[in-house]
């Protein structure tokens, strides 16, 4: 009944057998070594000086801050992956809902959320974003939202792969980070392009402060412009500082309260999707 | 002390079950109890001596043939005691259930008295199409007493494949057994493995109890409690037979 006892075996591993070809998705991405990455793509080594933690955080470590341990995504027939990051309350989930509203009819779309996610949030997306529940996956981040999008992206990659496996080919996957701070950026191993969302209520100094999110994001969204007069924020100052920090990288101003389809952001994504085909 | 007991239940060809073998010796005495009801035969373990004590070697073999229905109960909790310095007491229970056979093993709890050193080895083989309900409850120490050492080593196979393999170690020599990963200070724990027909529904079965679908065709219910009543509250309802069990009327044997 029992398998043969193995006592006669030497206590060394058996040599691995040769590997058969694997599908593209499973192949190690060693063909894109870190060294070949263009300098411009490397996140700045801001950590830990520019480090700000939210009020609810507890002590934790930061593996190799500023260094992306993952190789960039390989090219292939897969969905465009866009990361959406930004501080707590800046409007990430509202932006995701707006993009679902704007793009859900024209693109095959799915969402991975790293935020604390409840059925209430799912209902919010269902009601507001016309996104069925099976198109949303929640990833638990063990109280470390930035680890899950930057240092150890495995749970997010699994979620994206599972969405593609269950829904079939997709055009666009939005990966929403958990609310974090100005230093949070996505790994290039997880996403193709990233959007960083700040809001005017956070103060008009945010673009000047910089941080990897503001300086390196492919698109900076300055949200809640409708609140500017109420909080005394000067949008022109924010625009000037963002340009100084970001050089040629685009910045858009948005009021999701007024533009419920996030038109400038949706247009930017449409351009990216069109460029891929 | 060494003792062996053996039960063989067979279909009697008339929709009932007969006991082809019913043999035991102290402290493993077996008694058939109650009339045959709905094809079931019930056998009680009757403690014949104090114990098990260290050094005891006890063995019980149960065989349920095709179409036979056997329920095994015990009249009282068994109490593992220290006794003289000696190797651990060992109780080995083996059971086989043939296709179409049903075995219900629902003994009273085992109590690990302070200083005991007891091992229970359970090996159950259920053939494809057989059914099993296997319950083991353990109380760690008598009232306000520290627990002795008990190792419960269980393997349940179904259709030749290992379905459930589990050891539970409590008492001195089992690091962290009263920590929050194992029993968390609870003094009683019960497990119920169901295989075959009439599986309980999976889900939460109490504040510290759950009914879990195994990877193979079976279900495990586990409950931890401050005392055995909490365990009984969680597992008891899962052990009810579809038809009422007759009142216990020990027969002479």
């Amino acid at each position, binding site marked *: 009944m*029992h*398998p*043969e006892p*193995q006592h006669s*075996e030497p*206590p060394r*591993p*058996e040599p*691995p*057998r040769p*590997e058969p070809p694997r599908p593209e998705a499973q*192949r190690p991405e060693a063909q894109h070594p870190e060294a070949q990455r263009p300098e411009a793509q490397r996140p700045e080594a801001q950590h830990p000086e520019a480090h700000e933690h939210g009020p609810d955080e*507890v*002590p*934790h470590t930061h*593996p190799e801050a500023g260094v992306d*341990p*993952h*190789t960039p995504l390989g090219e292939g027939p897969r969905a465009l992956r866009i990361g959406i990051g930004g501080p707590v309350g800046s409007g990430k989930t509202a932006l995701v809902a707006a993009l679902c509203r704007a793009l859900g009819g024209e693109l095959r779309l799915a969402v991975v959320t790293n935020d*604390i996610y*409840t*059925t209430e949030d799912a209902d919010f997306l269902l009601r507001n974003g016309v996104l069925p529940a099976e198109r949303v996956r929640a990833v*638990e*981040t*063990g*109280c470390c939202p930035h680890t899950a999008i930057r*240092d*150890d*992206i*495995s*749970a997010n990659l699994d979620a994206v792969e599972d969405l593609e496996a269950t829904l079939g080919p997709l055009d666009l996957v939005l990966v929403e980070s958990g609310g974090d701070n100005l230093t949070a950026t996505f790994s290039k191993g997880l996403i193709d392009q990233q959007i960083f969302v700040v809001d005017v209520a956070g103060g008009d100094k945010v673009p000047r402060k910089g941080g990897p999110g503001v300086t390196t994001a492919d698109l900076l969204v300055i949200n809640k412009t409708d609140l500017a007069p109420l909080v005394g924020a000067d949008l022109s100052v924010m625009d000037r500082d963002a340009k100084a920090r970001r050089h040629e990288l685009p910045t858009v101003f948005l009021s999701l309260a007024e533009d419920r389809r996030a038109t400038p952001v949706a247009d930017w994504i449409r351009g990216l999707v069109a460029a891929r085909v | 002390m060494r003792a062996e007991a053996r039960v063989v239940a067979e279909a009697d060809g008339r929709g009932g079950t007969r006991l082809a073998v019913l043999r035991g010796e102290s402290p493993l005495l077996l008694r058939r109890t109650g009339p045959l009801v709905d094809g079931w035969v019930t056998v009680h373990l009757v403690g014949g001596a104090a114990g098990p004590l260290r050094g005891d070697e006890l063995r019980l073999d149960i065989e349920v043939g095709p179409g036979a229905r056997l329920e095994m109960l015990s009249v009282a909790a068994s109490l593992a005691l220290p006794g003289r310095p000696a190797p651990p007491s060992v109780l080995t229970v083996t059971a086989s259930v043939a296709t179409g056979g049903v075995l219900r093993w629902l003994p009273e709890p085992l109590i690990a008295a302070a200083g005991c050193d007891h091992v229970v080895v359970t090996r159950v083989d259920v053939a494809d199409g057989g059914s099993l309900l296997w319950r083991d409850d353990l109380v760690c120490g008598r009232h306000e007493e520290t627990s002795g050492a008990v190792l419960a080593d269980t*393997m349940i196979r179904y259709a030749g*494949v*290992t379905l*459930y*393999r589990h050891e*539970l*170690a409590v008492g001195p020599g089992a*690091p*962290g*057994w*009263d*920590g*929050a*990963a*194992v029993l*968390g*200070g*609870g003094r009683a724990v019960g*497990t119920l493995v169901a295989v075959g027909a009439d599986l309980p529904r999976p889900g*939460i079965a109490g*504040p*510290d*109890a*759950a009914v*879990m*679908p*195994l*990877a193979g065709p079976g279900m495990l219910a*586990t409950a931890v409690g401050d005392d055995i009543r909490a365990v009984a509250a969680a597992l008891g309802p899962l052990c009810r037979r579809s038809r009422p069990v007759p009142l216990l009327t020990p027969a002479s044997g």
Partner: protein
Amino acid sequence: MSLATLLLLADGRLPSGGHAHSGGLEPQIAAGRVRDVDGLAGFLRGKLATSGLVSAAFAAAACRRTRQWVDLDGGLDARTPSPALRKASRAQGRALLRAGRAMWPIAPIARDPHQPIALGALAAAAGLTPAEAAVAAAHSMITGSASAAVRLLGLDPYAVHALLARLAPECDRIAAVAAERSGDPVDDLPAVGAPLLDIGAEHHATWEVRLFAS
């Protein structure tokens, strides 16, 4: 043997999904059983002696018996009654393989084996011994939950690491036992279970909001 390779495999910074798992701690904190470093110590001691031993033995066995991964995986299924824990183990196995494939050539293996099987497969591919695979498994078993305790309870990280240092000899001992038994038939490999880990995982899986995946 390469000590540096072993350290790489055991490093909590290995991007293998571990940071999102509390190793069963989150539900026990919620149940009020772990509130401080002492409570954590009891949790970790019990975990090490139960699922730690099982994981270490299966990691060592998978490292040593690379043609028996399917049988070993089935052995872990039989030792993991909680579906939530099986899911968590397979998710971590999948994530570990993802990291491992980028580091070493790994023989063909299921997409999401149990975590100890994946760990053994990585160890074998990296040229490590079964004993080293066992140490890595036992070590990750306690360090993962300890890190989660710091994040969930705000415990003093120095006090938690002092505890881990005290547990290190026990971790070595467990790994040695595991390695010694790693050649045994699958049914005879360690099977010590922890009822509250099973029960807690099932409760945790029903929560509306949880911070850790398991």
